Every structure is written in structure tokens, then in C-alpha cells.
């Protein structure tokens, strides 16, 4: 591996003593040998993971444990028919009792179940009754009815609406977007479908670059030839189909800045991969798209995040979903994803200088402790150890801290070394 001083060596050779120059030559020779070895052995581990996945055949459909709600990703006509069944039931109640209500699965944390077998956060079977004749729920049910009506219109016309548009369609009723967003999620839970099945989408911020060809309706998109910006992941994923790929793994990167580095190097040309970023916290479309890729292409998947509790949290959301959207977890989570880096132990291993490490603040420490309390971390020894190391040192670092060793250190040294040694969680 190369140190900071070595990067500067070519300019200052004349002033350096002969012994030091000889040492640098040795280091460079070692580095060349190491690079040669990497070329031979690089990604052997990743490739054998892919071979294993491909030989294992199609991924089995997820078997949800008892006591959890089954959610489906359905097509337009199925969503339509589910919606009509709900409305028919409300009409029946009006005619029979005159006091209609609907039963919506609860989305509160008390109803979120950790499925240890599948390593996922799922929605339990507790429900809440929302009645039209109750002062406590009349606002909720009115908003819910309005959203159901909007969903019906969207499905009938075969178009998509954004969460923002839903809010603006009836500002007086929803008052603020937080209210309409919550009701949209209730409506999906009520229909036992993913939100995408209701044709309501959130604006997406994810980007995909690399060895992947897609179809968006009748347009074919080549993610290798869209310039340095890549393909902006569409929130209308029902229009997207994977056509072809010769990628051997997926690299999910937290930071856009790291993606710029990878893009400028056209990293996927050298290392056959698909690079995805949500530019920070993972949005639904990016998570759903990642799941689609890994499920259909059965590619080993890795995350590259900051070495801080928030980075680890982002990885966990890709891996097992967020509590807020637990009812959609089976369609959003990528359980086989690996945390490649930047691990807390990497800071010493890859000689990240002290000046590039930051002190963890109160929030960081709180989040790290909360994460260590989670069952899925307790069950994952290497992950637990890495978080404990981070907490013991109270140090964090961004992916960009690696650029202290040179701008190309991430692409030429760190990532190849991590992949070739299989150093991931």
C-alpha cells in the first residue's frame, strides 16, 4: 500500500537521502508485486459467490413467519380489484349497520416484528379500526378515503402520482404533507400492497452506473453510456425491466463524491460491476431497484459507507428495511448485502491519519448504542465487534478520508484490496 509521502516522492527525490530513496523504491516494488497479485486473485471470492448464487437457481420466494402481514407487489388490475373489495365492504356496512369502518394494519413500532430467520423487519398483525362515526378517527378516515379515491383515479388512468402531488390535490384536507404521506402508507397497508402498486411514487434521487442494460417501456437504457451522471433511478419501477448485464457484483455507495471518483475512473470497465448510490440515506426507489437487481441477477452486493454509526445505519436499511416501512420490507430489503467498508477497523488497517478522523458526537454515540441494542446486530458478531470498536475509540471517518493517500487510492488500492481479501462483514 502506498503512503502519503510516497505520492510526493517524485517531486522531492533530489533532496532525499539515498537510504530513503532505496526504501521508497522497495515500497514501490512491493506495491507493484501486490498489484500483480491482485490482478490474478482479485474478485475470485466475489466470482465464486456469484457462481454459487447462479447455481443455486432462482431465489426462493420469502416465507413469512406466522403473525406477520403478507404484502404483495401487484399489477394494476389486482390493485384495482383489491380497492373495489374494500369499497364494497364499506358500502355493505353502510347498508347494514350504518356505521362503516376499515381495519388498517398498525404501523407503529409495537407492531414491528424482527424475523430472525429471514433477518428482516416485518409488520405484525395488529390492526387499528378507523371509523367514520368516531371523533378520534373521522379525520384519518376522511383522508384515507380521499387517498383511496386518488389511487383509484391513478390506477384507472394508468398514470403515476407523486406524494407531493397527492398533498397538493387537497391541501385543506391534508393540511401538511406529513399527514398525506402517512395516509398513503396506511392506504398501501390497507390494500396489503406495496406503495408502488398504488401508482403513488416518491421522487427518487438514486443513480445507477455500470454494466447494466434496462428497458423503460419501449426505451432501452445502457447504464454504461450515459456520461458521468449515470441513470437516474426511476420511481416508476413497474415500467423498468432488466434486459442484460455482465456485472459480477453490485457496489452500493453512500456518498456521491465517492461515486464521482469511481465514475471518472470508469471503474466498472476494469471491475465488472453495477454502482448504485442514493446520495445519502436510501430512498424507496433505490432500495427497491437494488433488490430487483440482486434478486434477478443474483449478484453479490456490497455497501461502501462512511465509518460512522449513520453509515452503518444506512447499510442496515438496505439490508433489512426501516421500521417506518416495515410492511414493505420484503420488497425493499436486500438481506444478502455485505458491509464492505469503511469499517472501524479499516481506519488503522489502511492507515487513515489521525487528522482525518473525527470525534463522534453525542448523537453518534447514541445511535451506535441504539444499533448495538438491535437484535440483528447482536446476532452478527463481526458487525457488533466493529461497532463496539468504533464506540470504544469514539472515532469516525468519511470515505473521502482515504484520499489522504491520493485521489486514486480508493479505486486503485482500497477497493481492490478489500474485494481480493474478502474483508467484509
Amino acid at each position, binding site marked *: 500500500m502506498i503512503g502519503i509521502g510516497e505520492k510526493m516522492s517524485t517531486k522531492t527525490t533530489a533532496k532525499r537521502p539515498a537510504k530513503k530513496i532505496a526504501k521508497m523504491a522497495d515500497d514501490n516494488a512491493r506495491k507493484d508485486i501486490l498489484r500483480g497479485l491482485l490482478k490474478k486473485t482479485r474478485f475470485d471470492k466475489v*466470482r465464486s459467490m456469484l457462481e454459487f448464487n447462479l447455481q443455486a437457481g432462482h431465489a426462493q420466494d420469502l416465507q413469512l413467519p406466522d403473525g406477520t402481514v403478507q404484502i404483495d407487489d401487484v399489477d394494476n388490475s389486482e390493485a384495482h380489484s383489491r380497492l373495489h373489495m374494500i369499497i364494497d365492504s364499506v358500502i355493505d356496512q353502510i347498508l347494514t349497520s350504518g356505521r362503516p369502518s376499515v381495519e388498517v394494519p398498525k404501523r407503529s413500532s409495537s407492531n414491528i416484528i424482527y424475523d430472525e430467520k429471514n433477518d428482516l423487519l416485518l409488520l405484525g398483525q395488529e390492526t387499528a379500526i378507523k371509523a367514520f362515526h368516531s371523533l378520534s378517527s373521522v379525520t384519518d378516515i376522511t383522508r384515507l378515503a380521499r387517498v383511496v379515491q386518488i389511487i383509484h383515479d391513478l390506477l384507472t388512468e394508468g398514470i403515476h402520482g407523486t406524494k407531493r402531488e397527492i398533498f397538493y390535490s387537497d391541501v385543506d384536507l391534508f393540511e401538511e404533507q406529513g399527514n398525506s404521506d402517512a395516509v398513503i402508507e396506511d392506504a398501501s397497508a390497507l390494500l396489503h400492497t406495496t406503495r408502488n402498486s398504488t401508482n403513488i411514487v416518491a421522487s427518487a434521487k438514486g443513480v445507477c452506473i455500470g454494466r447494466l442494460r434496462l428497458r423503460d417501456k419501449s426505451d432501452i437504457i445502457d447504464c454504461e453510456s450515459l456520461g458521468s451522471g449515470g441513470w437516474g433511478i426511476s420511481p416508476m419501477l413497474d415500467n423498468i425491466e432488466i434486459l*442484460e*448485464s455482465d456485472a459480477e457484483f453490485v457496489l452500493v455507495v453512500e456518498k456521491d463524491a465517492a461515486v464521482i471518483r469511481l465514475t471518472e475512473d470508469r471503474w466498472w470497465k476494469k471491475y*465488472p460491476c453495477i454502482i448504485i448510490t442514493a446520495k445519502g440515506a436510501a430512498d424507496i426507489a433505490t432500495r427497491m431497484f437494488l433488490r430487483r437487481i440482486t434478486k434477478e*441477477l443474483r449478484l453479490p452486493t456490497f455497501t461502501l459507507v462512511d465509518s460512522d454509526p449513520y453509515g452503518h445505519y444506512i447499510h442496515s436499511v438496505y439490508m433489512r428495511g426501516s421500521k417506518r416501512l416495515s410492511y414493505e420490507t420484503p420488497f425493499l430489503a436486500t438481506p444478502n448485502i455485505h458491509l464492505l467498508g469503511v469499517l472501524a477497523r479499516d481506519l488503522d488497517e489502511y492507515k487513515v491519519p489521525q487528522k482525518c478522523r473525527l470525534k463522534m458526537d453525542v448523537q453518534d454515540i447514541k445511535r451506535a448504542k441504539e444499533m448495538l441494542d438491535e437484535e440483528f446486530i447482536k446476532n452478527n458478531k463481526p458487525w457488533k465487534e466493529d461497532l463496539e470498536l468504533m464506540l470504544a475509540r469514539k472515532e469516525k471517518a468519511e470515505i473521502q478520508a482515504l484520499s489522504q493517500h491520493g485521489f486514486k487510492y480508493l479505486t486503485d488500492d482500497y477497493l481492490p484490496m478489500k474485494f481480493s481479501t474478502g474483508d467484509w462483514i
Partner: protein
Amino acid sequence: MRIFKKPDGGFVQILGKERIKKWNAELPLLFIGYMRDNILPKYEDPSVRKAIEDYANEIMEEIAVPKLVEVLKGADQAARVKTSQSLEEISKKKPDMVKVASEYVTQLVSDNNKDVAKAAQNILKNIDRAEKKKQYASKRKTMQELDRKLAKGEVTDAEYMKLRKEYLKLEDEIGPEE
């Protein structure tokens, strides 16, 4: 996905036929064109190229053509018009892609549905024009050679005039670029 192993140990995965069968009638044809123009040239190894080309041919024979024929022979007039017009659009840009369906398109020229018949005429016209363009390109090379031979006196005026006339006639039939 259909999986192809590369000699370097890597893999190429291409969408499986079951999914392609669910597409609109004209899409498989577009995909085959994309495979031939963009996917095949990426893979240098002849065995991989052949395997992918064979797969493209399978899609063509088992899905693309039967799907088009099914829709064009069907009773749904709106679908017939849409498919024939989509084919017409493809024939403008990639006439070679629709050539495989020309036998069925020929039968549609006298179709009772005027829109279908018109689209069919245009498709055949585009295929014919593309064919003539190929002939013209080949004849252009011959004419350049002939010009040299004429200058050297290796060809008679009558022979030259005959070939030149054929060449100009072909040029006239192709017409100006749209």
C-alpha cells in the same frame, strides 16, 4: 435470465424468454435489434457471440414473429393498427429488423382496415428502399472501378452506358434522404 458463461470466467445474463413473451408485439423485435447492434459487439469471444446470436434467433422465431402475426391476424382492430404503425416506425430506422415479417406484411397491403394497409405499404416501401440502398452502395464501388476502366479504354462506351444507366435508375428509385 438466460446465462452465458464467458471464457474469462465471467457471466452474461440476458432476459429470459418467459418475460419477453409478455411484451407488446413489436418490442421483441426492437430488443433483438438492440442485442445485435449493441450487445453482441461487446463480447469479443466467438463462442459467446454465437451463443447470444443463437439466443436472439430463438427469440425471433419463437416470440417476435409469432407475436406480430398473432396481433396482425387478430380481430382487435386498435391493436392491429397500433402494431402495424409501430412496425412502420421501426422500419424507418431499422428496416432490416422488420424484414423477417415482410411475408405477413405483404398480405396486409390489401387489408380492409385502411390504416393497417397504409402502414403495410410504407413498411414494404422502407424495406425495399433499404435493400436498394445496399445495392446502390455496392454498385457505387463497381462504378468507380468502371470509371477507371473507361479512362483506360478497358470498357466500351456501350457497356459503360448500360451500367451507368442502371446505376442512375437505382439512385432515382432510392430518392432523396428524408
